[in-house]
Structure formats: C-alpha cells, structure tokens
C-alpha cells in the first residue's frame, strides 16, 4: 500500500489558523468561504439533477408535463370560459410564458425551504458553509427550467412569434427569479430548521403567491397607478418581463421591475444575514 505522502515539515505561514468561538448576533455572509466551496455546490447540484428522475418511468418528461398541463387547464378555464384578456397574444402562450419562470421560482422556493432538513445528514456530520444547501436546492431546478423553456420556444415557433431584441433581458429576469426564490428560501429554510410549521406553510404560501402573480391574467388588468405597487411582488416583474422580452407584449416593465429588483435584493440580503445568524444552531435542531 502506498503511504500517504504528506510532508511533516510545516511552513508556518502556509498553515491555516482558525479560532472557534461561540457565535453571537449578526455575522458577515462569508462569501469568500462560499466561493472556496463552489466545488461542493457544483457536486450537490449535479447530484440533485442526476437523482431527480431516477427510477421514474417518464423521467425528465415530468419537467415538461407539469407546466404543459397547467397551461392546458388555464387556457380552458381562464382563457376560453372566463375569457380573461391576454394582451393580444394567444392565451396558451401568454400563460405558458409565465408558467415557465413561475415553476422555476416556486419549485426552487419549496425545495430550498425544506433543504436544511433534507440535508440534515450532511449538516450534522460535516462542516461547510451552510448557505450551499439552499443555493443548491434552488439551482438544481435549472434543468427542469431549460426543458420547459425549450417547449416555450417550440410554442413560439408554432404561434409564429418572433422575439424582439428585448430577448437579451431573459437571463437577467431569470436571475431575478433565482434571487427572489433564494431570498425567500433562505428565510424559510432557516425558520424551518427550528420550526417545522414552515413545511405546512410553504405549500399555502406558494399557492397564494401564484394567485397574486399575473400568470393566468395580465397585470394590465390593474389600473396604471397600481402597476408600480404590483412590483412589490417580484414575480410580477419577472413574469411580465418574460412576456415582454419573449412575446413582445407592450408591458415593458419599467418602474415596476425596479421595485421588484429592490424587493428581491432586500429579501436575499436579509435572508442571508438571518440564515447566518441562525446557522450555528442548525446541527443541534435538525
């Protein structure tokens, strides 16, 4: 057997020094350390993606079936029966363009909320920046998003919609969805570690949030002056942004999107600090 080849001569300068102390109050976000552990983040996301549809018959088909069926139901009931307006574009693609980013957000949010409890085995046994766990949970929905997005592109071809130059904003809007999802996910995951009430609240929260977001209906239903306030729901900004960037609706999200970005960043930063504050107890309460 090969003997481990670690040199016994220590260069004092290269040896890391660490002080472990009781942590009290607020701490910094530890972004540098998070960066050092990016390899672990990569493998955890990879694991979640690889494992997600193992031992299923339809496999990744689920990533497509869910939004498609939601769209069909929305089109039937809201589009055909309730005759909800759709900013002058065919209702199916109108709703689908919103369902795709919403699905990514909602899925990321619920995965992140439960992530600390699901990942409890790791947290109780190994040290790493705990922030990695909810981040990985949100990011692991990205493959599902890409599959659903591909269907969206196919539908755009079918309905003969050519995207405008605004399509370059899609990645930024997606990032906004990620930030919102993670921001709320950080709050809820840290709370869920201590109070499992969160598990029951999340489903309800996502459902309510869905109703409050212009997915089945356009935000143009609201009077002009309320539009900016509607941006307090960052997903309203994301969804209307998607329609504008891809479908060319005239809902160019100006002030509304700025409000959304501000709310979303606030959620992320406060969520991050709250998470870091609660983090010292995770191993003891999970």
């Amino acid at each position: 057997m090969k003997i481990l080849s670690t040199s016994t001569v220590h260069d004092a300068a290269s040896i890391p020094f660490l002080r472990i102390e009781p942590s009290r109050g607020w701490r910094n976000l530890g972004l540098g350390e998070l960066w050092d552990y990016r390899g672990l983040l990569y493998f955890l996301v990879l694991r979640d993606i690889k494992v997600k549809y193992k031992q299923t018959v339809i496999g990744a088909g689920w990533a497509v079936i869910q939004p498609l069926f939601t769209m069909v139901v929305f089109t039937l009931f809201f589009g055909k029966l309730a005759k909800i307006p759709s900013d002058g574009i065919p209702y199916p693609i109108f709703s689908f363009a919103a369902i795709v980013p919403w699905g990514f957000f909602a899925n990321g949010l619920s995965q992140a909320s439960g992530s600390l409890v699901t990942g409890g085995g790791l947290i109780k046994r190994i040290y790493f920046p705990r922030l990695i766990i909810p981040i990985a949970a949100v990011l692991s929905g990205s493959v599902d998003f890409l599959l659903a997005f591909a269907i969206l592109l196919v539908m755009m071809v079918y309905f003969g919609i050519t995207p405008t130059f605004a399509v370059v904003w899609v990645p930024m809007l997606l990032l906004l969805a990620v930030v919102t999802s993670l921001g709320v996910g950080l709050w809820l995951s840290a709370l869920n570690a201590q109070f499992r009430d969160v598990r029951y609240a999340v489903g309800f929260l996502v459902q309510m949030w869905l109703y409050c977001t212009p997915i089945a209906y356009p935000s143009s239903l609201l009077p002009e002056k309320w539009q900016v306030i509607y941006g307090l729901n960052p997903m309203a900004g994301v969804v209307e942004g998607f329609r504008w960037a891809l479908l060319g609706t005239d809902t160019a999200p100006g002030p509304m999107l700025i409000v959304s970005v501000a709310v979303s960043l606030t959620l992320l930063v406060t969520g991050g600090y709250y998470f870091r504050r609660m983090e010292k107890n995770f191993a003891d309460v999970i």
Partner: protein
Amino acid sequence: MSENTAIRAEGVGKEYYIGASKTKYQTFGEAVTNTVTQPFRKVAGLIRGRAAAASGLEERIWALNDVSFEIKHGEAVGIIGKNGAGKTTLLKILARITSPTTGHVDIRGRVGALLEVGTGFHPELTGRENIYLNGAILGMSKGDVTRKFDEIVDFSGVERFIDTPVKHYSSGMHMRLAFSVAAHLEPDILIIDEVLAVGDSEFQRKCFNKMEDAGQSGRTVLFVSHNMAAIARFCDRAILLESGAIVEDGAADSVVSGYLMASMGKAAHQEWPEFESAPGNECVRVSSVRVVGANRVTAESIDMRRPVGIEISFSILKKELIFVPAISVFGDSGTHILNALDTSPKWREPQEEGDYRVIAWIPANLLNEGTLIVTVFLMDIWRYSGKPIKYAFITEAVAFQVVDSEGGPSGKGDYPQHWQAAIYPMLEWDTTRA
C-alpha cells in the same frame, strides 16, 4: 499559541436545551387556556429572538463544561468515556459542526473530520459518482479526487461495481467504498468518530495500517472510540471525559486501563488493613492482592510482551494446616482463561505461623489483549481427597489490562489488530520438509 500546537481548547462548554419545561395544570380550564395561549407565547419568543423559548424547550444540560487541553502536531489522541460523556459533542465543536456556548478553540492546520463514513453517499448514484461527491463533501477538490481515484477504488476493492448505483452494493461494500474515500483525505488534523468498526477483519486491518501511516506521516489524529484496545494501540495519549468534563489526560494505555477498571469497579491492588474482616478465617488471613510488573510495582496495564505477577500477601495463623496459593484468571466476558497453583514442595507441608508473600508469574507472550480479572485462593488440595478445602477464596480480587502498545514481536507477530482468543502464546514451531 506555540508553533507546534495543533489544537488548543480553553474553557470550552456546550449547553443544550432538552425537553419541554414541565408545568402541571391544575384544572381542565387551565390546560385549555394554556393550549390556546401557548402559540402566542411561542411567537412572542420567536420575535424576541429566543429560539429555545419559542420551541418550549427550557430544561438545559451542559454536554461539555469547561474543557481545556492542548494537542501538539503529530500527536495521536484518543477520547474515551461513557455514552453521553460529551465525546461526540467535543468532536463536533472541533469539526465546526456546532458552535461552543463558552470558551474557544484555536486550531492550526487543515481539519478533516470523519464523524460517520459515507456521509452524503446517494444510493441512486454510481460508485464513481459517489466518490466525487463524497470527496467534495469531505473537502477535496475535483483534481484531488481524480488524482487519487484509482488508489481509492483499489483500496476499497469494489472495482467491478464502480459504475453500479451504490444501492445495489452490499452494506460491506458500501462502507468500504465510503471509508476508502475518507482514508485518502490528507488534512493536517484528522478527527475520527468510531468509524473503524467497518467491514471485515481484512478491511479493518487495511484501515488500521492507513491510520498508522497517517500518524507516522506527522498528522495529528483525534480519535473517539469505544474500542479500548484500539485506543491503547493506536494513540499516544488519551483524554477521559465524564459528564462533559475531562477527568483524566495522560498516556493512552494507563488512561484506558484506569477507565476500564473504574467502570468495572476493580483495581489492580486490593488491601485489607483490618485483620478481623480480611478474607480468610481463623487459620489464615489475606492482607493484600496486587498485580505487579517485572519491577514489582503495581501495574494496571501490562504489555502482552511482558510478564505479569499476581502477588498475594497473607498471614498463617495455624501451623498444622496446608495452604496452597492458587489463582484463576478470567476474561471480561467471563471466559475462564487459566488456573494455576503453586505446586512447589514447600506448600505440601504445613508452614510456620507468620506473614508470607507469594507472586505467581504469568509469562510474557501468553495472555491476549483485554481486561483480565483474577480470583485468588488459599486452599488445601493435597491432604484431603474429594473436594479441596478453601481457607480463603477472593473472587475477582484484582483486575488488569493486557495491552499491545509497545510494538515488536509478540505471539501475534506484527498483526496490528485485536484477534479474538483467550491466550496468545509464543510457541516453538518445528518445521521440516516432508
């Protein structure tokens, strides 16, 4: 903190909240009121940032209390103690999994902690994928893992199944693969919790070799185990924890022996200063029994390569009788290992009244590792047919530990592990070519 200190803990304590506070409700009304108001009180606690109050946990326990120690680079230290003594809590603080409530720890060097093998293994992923994932979890970079990949697979002995999902592995294969990844970590300080008890004996031997390599290559090792023989063999030093505090810190074999003996309520030396109540009868009284090393000093632990003496001191009160000193040695699980009696002509005759001291020497390279318990007799087996007459009979008079800590040739050769057997004699082996 000096240059060659790897870990220094000062006044480390850890308080846990356990269980709900016990409140008795006198009336049904009070109980209902409480059920209704409790959520509000909890939310109030939450808003004020008092997580424990919000969870209704008020009873507290100090799992660790004012623990201080210093470990030098290259030391192999065992941490022992009963379940609940705080061993795992201490390791979790050192590994930064949980934070201390009081005190601080300074650590110089990269820490690798192995609190359970196979942490993060996913049953649906293949062996190969799990090696990378587990490596990342343990803090290895992708490059590190790739470089050591063949070595890891080779060490685990699961080459054929490396591209099979690990859920199809036997539990042994699973453990072996998991340990192999961990064994290829190269931190400056290695923290291990009871993980060596995996796999078959062949694999355990490989693990021990790997641990010893780690120790020899100057790595600091902290090792929690209930396997006392392993601690005595592998560690230079041991720390004994009891109810969250350090009660002993010293050379591994003596701390281990002391702990084992104390937990059995046995000692290597027993004395009866009161003549009247000493074991025996009006014909003979035993005043002390001790376990001694070659230098005739009381010894709680003896290396298996050294002789050990059982010393019996007694006073003969009646001169017409015959007293044959005898011992029985038992293993800690009750195995009767040997009987021995003094067959010298002296004890076939009655002896003068007075004080005597006999030592029964158990030769080197005979006893196996473990706790041994000695029963002592003074009896007459010569003059009476049928049952011998026991004048003094002291069951479980003394106990001692046989350890394998010195290294070098023994009945076991250089086999590094515990190999179950009552005795381990060095025999004459005669080989001829037939």
